């Protein structure tokens, strides 16, 4: 009687083990890559916040005529994310930063900035850069 119980218990344990083993290594979503393809779809459903310069050009083409210095810089590098602006098309949905700090983020004279024109704080302090320099020219 006792031997029978032990054998039945062992068979039960083996069956449970086999069921779990086949599920985990055969049918669970992480092994069949279902969860991964599901995540790829979630990742693709995210909405971009930054648009593209080609889309800006559709309305603001005049700004590009005669642009020299910043012609290789994308609009959203200075103006921030623009998808909301492309939908609502109002002035308050895009960032227009005329402060000195906005220009000096790139153009302040620190080490390692050899590829662009730089100025330091002694260059007309207190006056906004856009008074003399047009960033769109």
């Amino acid at each position: 009687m006792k031997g029978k119980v032990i054998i039945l218990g062992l068979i039960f344990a083996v069956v449970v083990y086999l069921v779990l083993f086949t599920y985990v290594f055969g049918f669970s979503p992480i092994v069949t890559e279902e969860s991964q393809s599901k995540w790829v779809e979630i990742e693709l459903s995210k909405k971009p916040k930054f648009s593209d310069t080609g889309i800006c050009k559709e309305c603001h083409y005049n700004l590009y005529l005669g642009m020299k210095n910043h012609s290789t810089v994308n609009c959203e590098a200075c103006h921030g994310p623009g998808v909301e602006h492309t939908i609502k098309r109002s002035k308050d949905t895009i960032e227009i930063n005329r402060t000195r700090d906005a220009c000096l983020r790139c153009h302040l004279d620190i080490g390692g900035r050899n590829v662009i024109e730089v100025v330091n704080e002694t260059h007309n302090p207190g006056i906004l850069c856009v008074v003399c320099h047009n960033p769109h020219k």
Partner: protein
Amino acid sequence: MNRRDFLKLIAGLLPLTAVTKALENVENTESTEKSYVMVIDVNKCIGCGNCVVACKTENDVPLDIPISRTWIEGYSVDEEIPVSKSEVRKQVLSTSKNPFLDDDWIKNSKDSKTFYVPKLCNHCVNAPCVNVCPVYARFYTKEGIVLVDKETCIGCKYCIVACPYGATFLHPEEEVTDKCTFCYHRIKRGLQPACVLACPTGARVFGDINDENSEVSKLVREHRVSVLRPEEGTFPRVLYIGLDSYVVE
């Protein structure tokens, strides 16, 4: 069924399996046509931090915490020979506040050799984080991009320990690991990754290396490129032009 019939059946099945295998291979070569890489020209990076801010805005990582999917390391070196005697000052830009515009950096960097190195997840071909993940939450897409399945991730942080580049971190709000996805939702729509778009000097270039006419292919053909930590055997997809030996990881 006698023995002759059985052998006939096997002989008939063999070419069929060969044909199906061949068809599978054709499908695979079509789907793996694209292979994305990023080429970063260190000489062009000016340490403005536009890429960090753009990445954090695009991917909903809080702006004020000092961890980021992409960051810039600034090196200011007073070089001496032998180079082990050189004095290296290092700063990391990973928030919206730019430490390179602080007074001490302006003062120290002017007369030293200064350069800025943008860093991000290298999307290794043989990624340690994918290898160690116990729940298979990290995986490669068809284009070779390493993604984190945040629904499966349990936040055990093995990947953070395994990554030789320190590119993966625990998201403070979602409490699962997070890292650069090469802006997978953007590149699939035909847009550039946010950091590439925001870079004012064009230091970052992103594209398909299998396409011979793409900008990255031209850059790789014309320049000497290197990767970070080649001794790890990870085969990164982020290639650097003009990397200095002071940049070790």
